[in-house]
Structure formats: C-alpha cells, structure tokens
C-alpha cells in the first residue's frame, strides 16, 4: 500500500510539472504551429500522463488524455493545423486534466464529479474527425448506441474490467463484446498507423517484451531510458488486457451454454487475472524504479520543516561566528604581535568561511527557480489577449533565477495582477497601435535576474505608457493627494500613485482589471516580502515595473544605525541609499519637512522622533539620512550615526513584546548585545504620523543647549589624592567653569550619570576603578562618544600613552604641569 502511495505521489509531482510545462509549450505552439519538435514534446507529455494514469487505473484521466493524444498525434503527422479554436479546446482539456489531477491529489481517485470530460472528449473527437463545427458532432453523439440497458458508448477498453457480465442478458453481453473487439481493432489500427516511434537513437517499435532483456540501459540517455521503459510497460499492459479480454469472451460464451456453471467459471479466472496483474504491476514498478535510479539524477525529497530547522541552526551559527570575529578583533588589539594570533586568525577565518558557505548551501536547498511561477503566464497572456481582442506576445527571460520557496509562494499573485495590468491597461488595441505606427502585436517582457542580495523581477510593456500629469489630476480628483503635493511631485512619484488604494486608471471597469484593488494588493504583497517596487514610464513608449525582493527572509543583511544612544538594524534590502546632508538641505512644505534629493522630494523624519527617544546628543554639522524604500513608498530617515553593515538573524521578542510598532524583532550582535530590527512597513506608517506633526529642524534643536559663558560648562576632576585634586581645582577656578570632583573611577561613573559634564580630567592610578577602565566604560556610551577625556598622570612611558589613546583618552598630561598649561588644554577641549 505504501509503495502504491509513493508511486502515486511521484506520479502527481511529475504530472503537475509536466502540465505546467505543457501549458507554456502549447501557447508557444500556437505561434509556431509547424514546430515538430515542440509538437512531439507536447505529444509525449500527454502520452506519458496517459500511460502512468492507466498504470494507476485512473480511467477518467486516461480517457481524456487518450483523446488529447489523438488530436496531438494528428497534428504531429501534419494532418491537422492547430488553429486558435482548436487550441482553445486543447487548453480546455489541459485544464480538465489539471482539475482531475488535483482531485486525485486531494482524494486519491479520479472520479472528480465536478469535472465533466464528455463534452471535451466530444470536441476532441470532432477535431480528430476533421469536423470543425461542434454542432455536428454533438448531433451525431446524440444517437447513443444502446442495446438493452447498456449504452455501448460508455464502454471503453479501459473500463471494460468493470462490466459485470453476470448481470447482462445474453444479447447485451454479445453486443458489449462485439463493441470491445471493435474498439480494440480500432486502436490496433491507429497504433499501426503511427509513424515509427523514435526517441533519441532508439526506435521504440523495434523493442518488444521478448527482446527487452537485451537493452543496455547504461548506454541510454535518461530521456531514451524513460521512453523505452514506458514503451515496455505499455506493451505489457496491452498483453495483459488482451489476455483478459480473451478470458472474458470465453467465459461469457460458456455462460450462454450453461447458466449454472457460469458463476464459477467466470469469476475464477477474473480473480486470478487480477492477482496476476497485481503481481505484474509490482514487478513492472520495480523494474521501472531500478532502471530509473540507475540513470536518473539522484534526488531526495525532504520535508520543508526539516529545512527550516536546519536554517534556524545555521542562524545560531552565524550569530556565534559574528561573536567570534568580534572577540578576535578585541584580542588582536590587545595582544598585537603575539604568535598565537596568526593561528587564531586562521581558525576564525576558516570557521567564518565555512559558516558562510554552509549558510549559502542551506539557502540553496530551499531555492526554487522562478520559472515555476513564470510558467503559467504564457497561458494567462494568451487567454487575456484573446478575451480583450488584443495581440500580445510575452517574452520570458531568466526563469532559472532562484528564490526561496516561501517567497516563490507569495510572489505569484502580485505577478498575475501586474501582468494583467500590463496587458489590459498597457498594451493598446491593434488598431490603435497601427495608427501610432507601432507593430500590431504588443510585447510584454517578464524578466528575472539577481542584483546583489536581491532578485529583480521586471515587467515591461511597449504599450501606451502613463502620463504623470493625468495621474496627478486623477489623484487630486479622488482626494488622494492635495494640489500642493501634486505640484511638488516628481514624475516617478506620480507613477507610484497607481498603488494607492482606490486609484484606478482604466476608463471602464473590465472583468480583468480596473476596480482599483489590484495594484494596491500588489503593493501589500510585495511589502510583506520586504520588497521594493519601482515604476518607470514614458507616454506612448511603455511602462516598466521593477520588483526588488530579498532572496531569503531568515538571515538578512542589515544596516546598523544609531539614533541617539540606541542602535537599530535596518534591513538592507529596504535601504535605497544613505546620504549626508546639512540642515540647509531640509525644506519645509506645508509644515512638513522634506528632503530634495536629486529629482525627488522625500518626506524627512528624525528616527528619534518616531521612537520617542530622548535627545541627548547635540546636533552636528552633518546629518545622516537613510533613504528607505518599501513597496512604492520612500522616506528619508535621519539617524545620528551609521555603524555599518552586518549579517543578522531575526529573533522574536517573545510573547509579551512582539508586535511593538516599528519593530520586527531583535538580533544578537557580535558583542552579545541585543539590537532591535526595524519593521520597515510599520515604521513607514509611524513615520507618516510623525511627519505630519513634527518639523525635523525643530526636533534637531531640542538637544541644543546654548553654552556661551565658561560658567555654562562643567569639568569633572577624578583623582584619589585630595592634594592633586586641589592643585587642579586651583588651576581651573580661574577659568570660571563649574568643577565637580570624584575620588575614583566608580564614583566618577556614577556622578557622570547624574551631572551634565563637558570634560573630565582623569588620574590613571586609582583604587576600585583605574583611569583606563573608566575611560573605556565611558566610551561605551554613545552619549559620551565625544566627551573630552584628559589623562593627568605621572606615568610617562610610551606604552602608557599608547594605552591611554587605546581606551579613548583625548589628551595625556604628565605631572607635574603648570597651571597655565592645564588651563589651555581644558579651554581647547571645551572650545572656549
């Protein structure tokens, strides 16, 4: 049972894959009806599904594919040209086939009560018979071939086993048998008519069950091997069927002669036959499997959960690696020139390389080619263009580009919307195109390629393009933007208007698009994937959409920024660029701060305002801005410092804290500290609110406190010797600055927290905490990054000075010193 189940699963996976391909091939075929290779390929797919289907006793499926095959076979022999009408029927049957396969997948049998294949079969038959009018065929079909209670038309070779002859009257049984023989003959004849069945270098017709042992599978290509095996299975099936048929015939004759003996005679052989068939099938299955495993590519199917688990473990490893690198850097500083460093360096580098490789390898196991999604679009475009009366050609490129499975699953719907949009709104009707001097047939390009850690999906059409002024006018009419906003809007921003909810550009609403929901949905979906949408358009020339999506979601590249003293990780996939500006670059429009960056006008928000972070840092000459992009929105985010780029692993904040606005989670950095990760979508919404109520230039000045006179400044003196403190005090009192004193490092640190200090004079040797450690501790805070620290000590060796610089001292004064010298140093450091 398990083996059958396994076989069934394999069959379904294979069948779905083939059908997907078939869809695409068929549409291609419509354009090049004479492409024999293509025809052969399509024929083989139908044939394979029929073969495997009958093998697994899916009669409905087999019946459908059999008729499809007949049509394709005829086309293949050049007796039939595929017209769009015929293609409609074929595509319809492919859809029915899909439906049945889906039913099989969900229910395990092919009864699929919702799918009625009879009308399709009728149409397919009509095509084979060369009748183009459907009416005619249905008419002839209407005279069913009925004998007694039996409709002979319902009986096929495939469902013959199901007939219970014991329930039939002698006349009925005769008629049925005759009908079956006729069918068999027909099939044999059509079998004979076939051209030699050639795959690769192998003529399948030469292979029989008897000479099968002579085939050397090792010399065959996988395709050839498959074909040969299939052929053998088919032959075997045919033989079985023939035997059974004979048996039935015989037994029913007996039944005529002797009604009493009928039951025993009839049942026994059938039962026997069934078991022997079962055995045959098992054997065949084994043969097939054995042969396939010797030639086919080695693959293994794995539960996605296991891959997720693996990915989590790798995440931990990446964190540990980051930590190791950080520790190595610390060690390197401290023990520079030591021999063991070299060795440590090698170990750290190799672990780091292996971890990265491992991460890439595991990521790759989760990757699928985007072709999986792209495959359905030729069909979509074909159906759409027929429905809309347009001529559209779809060109697909880069279908091998790979993406994480979870992203592949999410990307399908937005792409459908975008393609529909391009065909419906972008491409003009043929007459219009002709009038404009364009080729009648419009083109839509669907392209995928890698760009750094992102994948770019480009949807481009050569249609009518978009007019930014029209879009603006429309948006104002609908109350989406104000006149002033429109006046300040660059063309690129105007194109983004189509992603606003409630915005629809189609003059009339069609069944395809124009209800103003589609593009909004696209935006939401892409935002869910942390992706960015870019639009470019030229009126009359066409429109290009670019979707930029991160390759994976679990381990991401992030830009680390500091807002005041807090660090945040911004997903790099949403960082469009970083710029350094001065306050004069900030404009205020209608009470809102904006940044003019080249052509664009971007809303500008201070990150500290968004997260309500207390401002302790005085603004500097330059402001650092992260340009964030998500979906169709862009904003400028003022931060206080760029820290750098790092690979981070997203961790949840736990049940109690998850879902905090603007925060997607946390990551553990190399130094073991936790850094919050920005949820760009949520941050954008917060930023919008903040943008409406806070002018950046004002917010920047909040921390700016005017210091003019020396008495506005405070200097802390740290020394364990009361006498030394007194000397310093005496020297500095003349300056007029405030002085506070601490006896050791611990006390100094405590006082620093409670007082506003502008400079510190620090002795090195002190109890509890020495001057070096104090400086080191102070520099850990972003707030004190620029606080002048002046070492005042009697330690005079070069090593001491170097150590002082290392821990972050700004100046080094050796005792004894003159009062004047000390004053000058302090004045210089305070900027007095």
């Amino acid at each position: 049972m398990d083996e059958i189940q396994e076989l069934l699963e394999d069959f379904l996976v294979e069948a779905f894959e083939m059908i997907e391909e078939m869809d695409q091939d068929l549409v291609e075929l419509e354009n090049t009806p004479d492409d024999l290779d293509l025809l052969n390929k399509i024929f083989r797919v139908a044939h394979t599904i029929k073969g495997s289907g009958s093998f697994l006793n899916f009669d409905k499926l087999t019946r459908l594919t059999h008729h499809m095959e007949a049509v394709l076979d005829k086309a293949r022999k050049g007796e039939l040209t595929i017209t769009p009408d015929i293609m409609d029927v074929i595509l319809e049957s492919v859809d029915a086939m899909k439906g049945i396969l889906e039913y099989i997948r969900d229910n395990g049998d092919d009864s699929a009560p919702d799918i009625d294949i009879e009308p399709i079969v009728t149409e397919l038959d009509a095509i084979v018979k060369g009748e183009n009018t459907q009416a005619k065929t249905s008419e002839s079909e209407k005279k069913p071939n009925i004998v007694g209670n039996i409709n002979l038309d319902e009986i096929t070779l495939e469902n013959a086993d199901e007939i219970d002859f014991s329930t039939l009257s002698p006349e009925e049984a005769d008629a049925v048998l005759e009908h079956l023989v006729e069918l068999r003959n027909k099939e044999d004849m059509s079998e004979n008519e076939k051209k030699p069945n050639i795959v690769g270098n192998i003529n399948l017709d030469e292979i029989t069950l008897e000479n099968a042992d002579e085939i050397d599978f090792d010399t065959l290509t996988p395709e050839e091997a498959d074909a040969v095996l299939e052929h053998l299975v088919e032959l075997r099936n045919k033989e079985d069927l023939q035997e059974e048929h004979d048996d039935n015939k015989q037994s029913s004759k007996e039944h005529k002669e002797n009604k009493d003996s009928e039951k025993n005679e009839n049942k026994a052989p059938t039962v026997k036959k069934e078991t022997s068939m079962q055995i045959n099938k098992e054997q065949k299955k084994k043969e097939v499997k054995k042969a396939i495993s010797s030639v086919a590519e080695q693959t293994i199917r794995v539960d996605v959960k296991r891959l997720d688990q693996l990915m989590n473990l790798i995440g931990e490893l990446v964190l540990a690696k980051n930590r190791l690198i950080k520790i190595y850097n610390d060690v390197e500083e401290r023990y520079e020139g030591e021999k063991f460093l070299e060795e440590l360096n090698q170990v750290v580098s190799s672990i780091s390389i292996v971890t990265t490789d491992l991460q890439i390898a595991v990521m790759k196991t989760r990757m699928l080619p985007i072709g999986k999604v792209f495959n359905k679009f030729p069909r979509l475009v074909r159906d759409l263009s027929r429905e809309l009366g347009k001529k559209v050609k779809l060109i697909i490129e880069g279908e091998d580009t790979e993406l994480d499975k979870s992203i592949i699953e999410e990307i399908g719907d937005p792409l459908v919307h975008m393609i529909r949009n391009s065909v419906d709104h972008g491409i003009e009707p043929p007459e219009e195109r002709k009038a404009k001097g364009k080729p009648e047939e419009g083109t839509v390009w669907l392209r995928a390629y890698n760009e750094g850690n992102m994948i770019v999906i480009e949807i481009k059409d050569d249609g009518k393009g978009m007019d930014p002024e029209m879009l603006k006018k429309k948006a104002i009419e609908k109350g989406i933007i104000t006149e002033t906003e429109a006046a300040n809007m660059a063309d690129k921003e105007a194109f983004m208007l189509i992603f606003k909810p409630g915005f629809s550009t189609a003059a009339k609403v069609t069944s395809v698009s124009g209800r103003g929901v589609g593009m909004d949905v696209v935006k939401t979906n892409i935002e869910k994937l942390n992706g960015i949408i870019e639009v470019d358009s030229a009126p009359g020339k066409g429109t290009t959409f670019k979707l930029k999506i991160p390759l994976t979601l679990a381990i991401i590249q992030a830009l680390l920024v500091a807002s005041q003293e807090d660090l945040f990780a911004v997903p790099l996939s949403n960082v469009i660029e970083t710029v350094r500006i001065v306050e004069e670059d900030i404009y205020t429009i209608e009470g809102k701060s904006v940044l003019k960056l080249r052509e664009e006008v971007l809303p500008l928000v201070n990150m500290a305002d968004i997260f309500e972070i207390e401002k302790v840092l005085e603004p500097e000459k330059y402001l650092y801005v992260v340009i964030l992009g998500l979906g169709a929105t862009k904003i400028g985010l003022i931060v206080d410092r760029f820290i750098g780029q790092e690979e981070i692993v997203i961790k949840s904040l736990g049940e109690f804290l998850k879902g905090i606005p603007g925060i997607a989670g946390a990551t553990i950095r190399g130094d073991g500290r936790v850094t919050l990760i920005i949820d760009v979508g949520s941050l954008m919404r917060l930023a919008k609110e903040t943008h409406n109520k806070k002018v950046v230039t004002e917010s920047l000045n909040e921390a700016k406190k005017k210091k003019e006179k020396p008495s506005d400044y405070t200097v802390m003196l740290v020394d364990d010797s009361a006498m030394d403190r007194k000397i310093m005090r005496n020297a500095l009192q003349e300056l007029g600055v405030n002085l506070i004193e601490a006896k050791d490092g611990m006390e100094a640190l405590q006082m620093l927290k409670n007082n506003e200090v502008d400079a510190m004079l620090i002795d090195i040797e002190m109890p509890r905490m020495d001057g070096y450690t104090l400086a080191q501790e102070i520099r850990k805070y972003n707030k004190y990054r620029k606080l002048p620290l002046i070492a005042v000590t009697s330690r005079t060796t070069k090593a001491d000075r170097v150590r002082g610089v290392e821990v972050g001292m700004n100046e080094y004064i050796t005792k004894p010193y003159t009062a004047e010298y000390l004053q000058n140093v302090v004045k210089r450091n305070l900027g007095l």
Partner: protein
Amino acid sequence: MGSLNEIVKQQQKSLTQPQENVAEEIVQLVGFIVGEEEFAVPILSIQEIIKPIEWTRVPFTPDYVLGVFNLRGNVLPLIDLRVKFGSPANDIDENTRFIVMKIRDEDVAFIIDRLTSALRIKKKNILPPPDTYSNEEDIIEGVGRMDDGRIITILKVDNLIKREEIVPENN
C-alpha cells in the same frame, strides 16, 4: 491558578478538621527586596537568578519594561519591579539581581534590589491578601507570616505582567 481559593478552602478545612496533616504542608519560596518591602515567589517558578547584564531599550513600552537582553542566545524582556510597584527606579549596585521566571511558558526577567533568603513556610501561615492592600491587578497571592514575625508578600507570578498592558492591541 485559582490557588487562592484552594488556600481559603484549605484554611477552612484546617479550622474544621484541626488534627489533619495538610496544615503541615510546606511551601518553598525565594524572598527578595524591592524598594522598602520584602516579597517572595515560589521557588519552582524561578528559572535562574543572574547578575545584571546590559540591556537594550524597546520603544513604545510602559516605563517598567526596561527592554530586552541576551541570555545565552535568547532574547528576554526585562521588567523593573520597583517601577512596576510604583517606587522610583534605583541604581544598579552589587546586590541587584535579575530573576528569570517562567510566565505562561515565556522566560521573563525581573530586576530586584536584593535577594534575602530561601524560605520555608507552612501553608497554614499564608493568608489571603488583606483588604488594605491594593491588589487591583491580582498580583498578590497571599501574605506569609514567618516564624520570626516577618510579614512577606507572596506574588502571583503569572499575573506580574500582561501582554495587553505592554503592547496595545489596536496598534
């Protein structure tokens, strides 16, 4: 959960059946100081007690949520019990500890000023919180009377923090 009722029931029982041994049941607690007061939690609810380590502030949270910190690769929330209980925040000194407790299957750390001791207290000596206590949030399990006459407030660990108080639902 519902243990308050159990205690009441047991106390009633012990009044009616003074000779039975349930009254001798011992509860093990860990006592600590927050602000001016001594509190205790059942020893079994404590995962571990650690010395203070650096934490990261989290925006948009009540002031008693100090932030999150890294405990051996896990990100844990850090709650200041002083602020939670309405006293001003204290400086961290050498006696300050983080108590990590499991609340609804999640590890959460609480800052306390100082550990006192492990306590063994007879169940019959635990009384329901007196009416004079403000216990609107239902965070007090009962009041323990120690043999030496000390009175200790026993906390209901599961109710110490609630998600809806930390992250407003509508946002």
